[in-house]
């Protein structure tokens, strides 16, 4: 009965008008535009996919602040091609399905020029195919190896942050030479953690070491003691990397598990991003080592560019917000947003970007980039971009906990992080 009722509906004036409007909107899509857009002073609209809620919220808050600061610096210096930059932020809920919807919303609703942003690898992997279908350049700040592995597409680029494969490859010699050969890995059980598991195991074996246990923990887990008995007794080094809202509990419970007789510990700072190192229960970390994408505490050899960047974002010498010392930043990752926005600016200026019809030219301009020297646009350090794999390579930092601060112990070279190409995105058509 109900179906018949629907079929009987006569066209009303309203739904005829809606249909007309939809047809109009469709012909107005970028691909249909029969003329080249004129030079304009309208803002360049950058869709910013951000983890406002969900398990990535702490990263999202700081990615947001860094992006806002970078956009302000760019706008104060005259914008891109003389046009101001407008950041349109949308929450992806740290959820892959929502991530893809956000990309779609940028394209169809906000009429953004490009999409940019997010961190968690499952959101990137969920969103990138949609970006490819919509022919929307998608600049990610995610660290995952999924860009350089060839899993994604020509529209997805990662020019502002290095990937896990190159990070762990550069860490393996330090761990095997200084801390021990028998490693137990503890990592989150999703794409990002699996990158750690696969590439670190291979890299440490190449150094004559051995991974004696691989402990995967769901990123939504809240209690961790139950996982630690799986650490074999002959472990020399614990290699830990954890994400999600419960990271502090993870590290504290690890300390409680070992008591006074801990093995060597090497962690990715992800396990303590946005967490104050002086929190009670973290004292056992004294003397342990961390990978940091960018040192949280201002170091003795701090560059003028780091000084400028730190001040622009509003971060103090200890890596916390200048307005609230308890609000610790995700300093090791968020520089990627700053650098990516500057690369977008450089790419748009090199390609003479005018509007959505120049998206392919923008991607080609970024693909043509190679050396990126240490500068205000690249405060984390010099980098080398590989246009074929859409992935950037750069220095990695190893810091040691001393007196509750992270002090720089070792800086890797860019060459330490390189590996053979696994894909050539430039051979794909637009």
């Amino acid at each position, binding site marked *: 009965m109900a179906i018949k009722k629907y079929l009987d509906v006569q066209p009303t004036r309203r739904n005829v008008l809606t249909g007309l409007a939809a047809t109009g909107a469709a012909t107005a899509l970028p691909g249909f535009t029969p003329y080249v857009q004129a030079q304009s002073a309208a803002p360049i609209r950058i869709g910013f996919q951000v983890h*406002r*809620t*969900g*398990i990535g*919220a*702490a990263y*999202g*808050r700081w990615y947001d602040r860094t992006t806002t600061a970078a956009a302000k610096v760019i706008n104060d210096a005259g914008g891109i091609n003389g046009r101001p930059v407008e950041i349109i932020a949308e929450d992806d809920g740290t959820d892959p399905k929502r991530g893809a919807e956000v990309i779609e919303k940028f394209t169809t609703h906000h009429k953004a020029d490009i999409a940019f942003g997010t961190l968690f690898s499952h959101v990137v992997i969920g969103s990138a195919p949609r970006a490819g279908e919509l022919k929307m350049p998608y600049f990610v700040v995610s660290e995952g190896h999924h860009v350089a592995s060839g899993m994604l597409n020509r529209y997805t680029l990662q020019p502002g942050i290095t990937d896990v494969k190159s990070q762990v490859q550069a860490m393996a010699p330090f761990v095997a030479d200084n801390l021990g050969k028998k490693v137990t890995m503890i990592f989150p059980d999703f794409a990002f953690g699996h990158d750690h598991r696969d590439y670190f195991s291979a890299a440490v074996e190449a150094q004559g070491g051995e991974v004696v246990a691989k402990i995967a923990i*769901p990123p939504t*887990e*809240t*209690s961790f*003691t*139950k996982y*630690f*008995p*799986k*650490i074999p*007794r002959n472990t020399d080094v614990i290699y830990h990397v954890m994400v999600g*809202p*419960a990271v*502090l*509990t993870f590290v504290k419970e690890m300390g*409680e*598990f*070992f*008591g006074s*007789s801990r093995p060597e510990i090497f962690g990715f700072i992800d396990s303590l991003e*946005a967490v104050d190192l002086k*929190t*009670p*229960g973290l004292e056992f970390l004294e003397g342990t080592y961390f990978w940091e994408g960018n040192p949280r505490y201002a170091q003795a050899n701090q560059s003028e560019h780091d000084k400028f960047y730190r001040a622009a974002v509003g971060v103090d010498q200890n890596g916390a917000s200048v307005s609230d010392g308890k609000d610790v930043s995700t300093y090791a990752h968020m520089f990627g947003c700053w650098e990516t926005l500057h690369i977008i600016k450089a790419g748009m200026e090199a390609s003479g970007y005018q509007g959505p019809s120049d998206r392919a030219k923008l991607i080609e301009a970024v693909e043509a980039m190679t050396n990126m020297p240490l500068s205000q646009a690249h405060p984390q350090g010099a980098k080398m971009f590989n246009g074929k794999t859409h992935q950037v390579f750069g220095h990695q930092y190893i810091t040691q906990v001393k007196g509750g601060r992270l002090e720089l112990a070792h800086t890797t070279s860019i060459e330490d992080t390189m590996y053979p190409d696994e894909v050539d995105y430039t051979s794909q058509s637009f």
Partner: protein
Amino acid sequence: MEFGPHLILAMLEGLVQASVLTLTALGLSLVFGVMRVVNVAHGEFFMLGAVFAYAITDWLTGSAAVGFLAALIIAPLLVAALAVVCDRMILRRLDYDPERTIVATIGILYVLQQVTLMTYGPDAHPVTPPFNQRLAIPWFEFTDTGLEFYFPWGLSTTSYKLFVIAAACVAGLGIWILMARSKLGLILRATQLDRETAQAFGIPVERVYAFVFGLGAAIAALGAVLVVPIQQAHYLMGGDPLLLSFIVVIIGGLGSLRGTVVAAILIGMSNGVISVFFTPTLAKILATLLVAFVLVYRPAGLFGTKVA
């Protein structure tokens, strides 16, 4: 880790989980038993207990013990007050109709969760435990020289975790005394058995309902305050306790307090032991499977009576 110390550690972890789960599930079971309301928002009352505990300890910056004690008393009361408001404003207006209250409590779930997100924010915050000493547990082995004691790597618990177990036992005992030995308990049980007859005997059923809904939420909040120094307060933390509480209540028998306690210990312990020896995912799979079997072969639960 050797089998013996491993098992002890697994059981200790299981006991901590079981004690918090017992409290959460008792709250859910009480509300269902007396009011016949399936409270889907129960996990959010649990979450609010933890969030209030953080807010109170953060506000009372003095000693951790004073802040925690205040949270232990104030947070459940605040949550209870909120639950009473929900009862008066929503559930009563639906005449406690079983189907409509399910939909209404789903609505309450989202409102509470999103309001927490908008005010408290998306981050997890730690609460400092009032005391927290690591207690290493000795283990024995037979060597050539006879029995020897030693401290295996990792075999330890903390004084606070032992406190959680003890506090949950005390709270559970308190609820039992309330239900089985007090005049108030008599009124609650009378309402549970037959609402209309109870009303005919002059029991103010609507006030009883408001009280029970508040009490159920307060018990969940109490469990959350106890666990928050081990876990951290986060706006999404209500999901797991809700799921596990439902599993417990279905296995134990809807409305049966005794069954709830037995099932909570069973699920909490097996969860702890299976997660330590195998994986947490397997623990959840087995618990869900157990629910399926109980529903097929003993629909009223282990200790439940048939619901009319």
